């Protein structure tokens, strides 16, 4: 299981594995991981040999984060979708896109963004309620967003017709670089309905 280092020479007690060695191990995990890794996931990998509390692991990740800034690396550790990930700085994007021969990174259309916004702030929400806000049919857009993995089905509403209720996924958070739904812009304002007592001028 532990191919990362030689088990003959490393003791199982935490005191015998120096902090900076553990820090490098964590760095290696973050380096190879394709998705953000949560502290819990990191701990799960370490636990066979290294016994650290989640807070201690977090501390090491934060140290790495600062190291990268101090050393002015081309990448940073960011907190996304409840986990940590190493990502390159924006200034290198054009070269990276050249490497992968991307013309343009994939972006969502206006209709998709609006629909996604409604679901993100008002989840769990049914298709009918989404349409109530947008004023148009959202079937096609919802399908596309679902296929892209940005939406998921949370279940069904227990009312006649048992309509499907939607919510956003971890991939949604990753796509926008958010750590949690609470980090959505104007979260407090948009999560509730527009006030019912509007004063109109006659």
């Amino acid at each position, binding site marked *: 299981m532990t191919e990362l280092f030689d088990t003959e020479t490393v003791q199982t007690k935490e005191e015998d594995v120096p902090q900076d060695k553990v820090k490098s191990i964590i760095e290696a995990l973050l*380096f*190879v*991981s*394709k*998705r*953000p890794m949560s502290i819990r*996931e990191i701990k*799960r*990998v370490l636990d066979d040999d290294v016994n650290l509390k989640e807070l201690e692991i977090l501390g090491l990740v934060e140290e790495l984060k600062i190291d990268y800034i101090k050393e002015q690396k081309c990448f940073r550790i*960011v907190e996304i979708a*409840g*986990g940590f*990930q*190493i*990502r*390159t700085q*924006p200034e*290198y*994007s054009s070269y*990276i896109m050249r490497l*992968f021969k991307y013309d343009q990174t*994939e*972006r*969502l259309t*206006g*209709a998709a*963004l*609006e629909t996604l*916004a*409604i679901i993100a*702030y008002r989840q769990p929400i049914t298709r009918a309620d989404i349409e109530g*806000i*947008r*004023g*148009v049919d959202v079937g096609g857009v919802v*399908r596309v967003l679902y296929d892209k993995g940005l939406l*998921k*089905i949370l*279940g*069904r509403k227990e009312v006649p017709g048992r309509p*499907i209720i939607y919510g956003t*996924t*971890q*991939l949604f958070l*990753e*796509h*926008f*670089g958010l750590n949690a739904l609470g980090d*959505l*812009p*104007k979260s407090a*304002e*948009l999560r509730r*309905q*527009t006030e*019912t007592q*509007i004063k*109109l*001028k*006659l």
Partner: protein
Amino acid sequence: MNENNTTPEVATEIAPELAAIANGLGLKDGDYKVELDIFEGPLDLLLYLIRKDEIDIYNIPISRVTKQYLGYIEIMKMLDLDIAGEFLMMAATLMLIKSKTLLPPEERVEDENEDEIDDPRLDLVRQLLEYKKFKEVATELQILEGGHSKTFSRIEDEIPLIEPSNKRLVDVGIFDLLTAFSDVLKRGEIEEPKELEEDEVSVSDRIVMILQTLYEAEEAVFSRFFNNLSSRMEIAVTFLAMLELMKQRKIAARQSEVFGEIVIILREGEND
């Protein structure tokens, strides 16, 4: 503003913009760009009219806006654009609101709690305000998306993340799946359709069906998804839908013993 505009005159007044739109061009107008060859929906069109004429959303001149709105509908017809039903429903709503505002005050419904009369524009304004908020935040999300899209992490799928284990069951290989599929095809009840089906069975529909089935019952045996299917086409499409969902890692196929019954389960999502 000339209240006696007939439709053609209104069309002339707003036609330059629409001509540009019809040519698929964007038209710069101040800080925002009028894009698209068609508005996303009636609310979109109304907000556009409100913005264009700098109308106070809390005091919409309903007659004027209704006339302009109808003018746009006419032009869309002239340009042979597809008009969604929602546009026509909104036209009716606007005309209804307009007629209510033309009623003498005494005949309107009074709100018991206030001296003010219940304004017939209220519901529409509330809907517009709500939609407007989401349009604005969608722009903010677009900025976030743009900024984030300039950063990259490891892209190749070299090392899979540790999965929460359902370790009683072992992942099923493609040949097992093909075998199961071929078993389903062999079942006696299948008839070849005499003529080509009118309705195409789409992979999308099957995908939704599979997911819905799994939402109701946490897991289901492979053959269940093929019950009640009589044509080879439907069976093949259903199988394709299943493979697609597996590729997308939304579902997984497991069997508790080699050559045992295959069970399809919903994946919890790698990120949970």
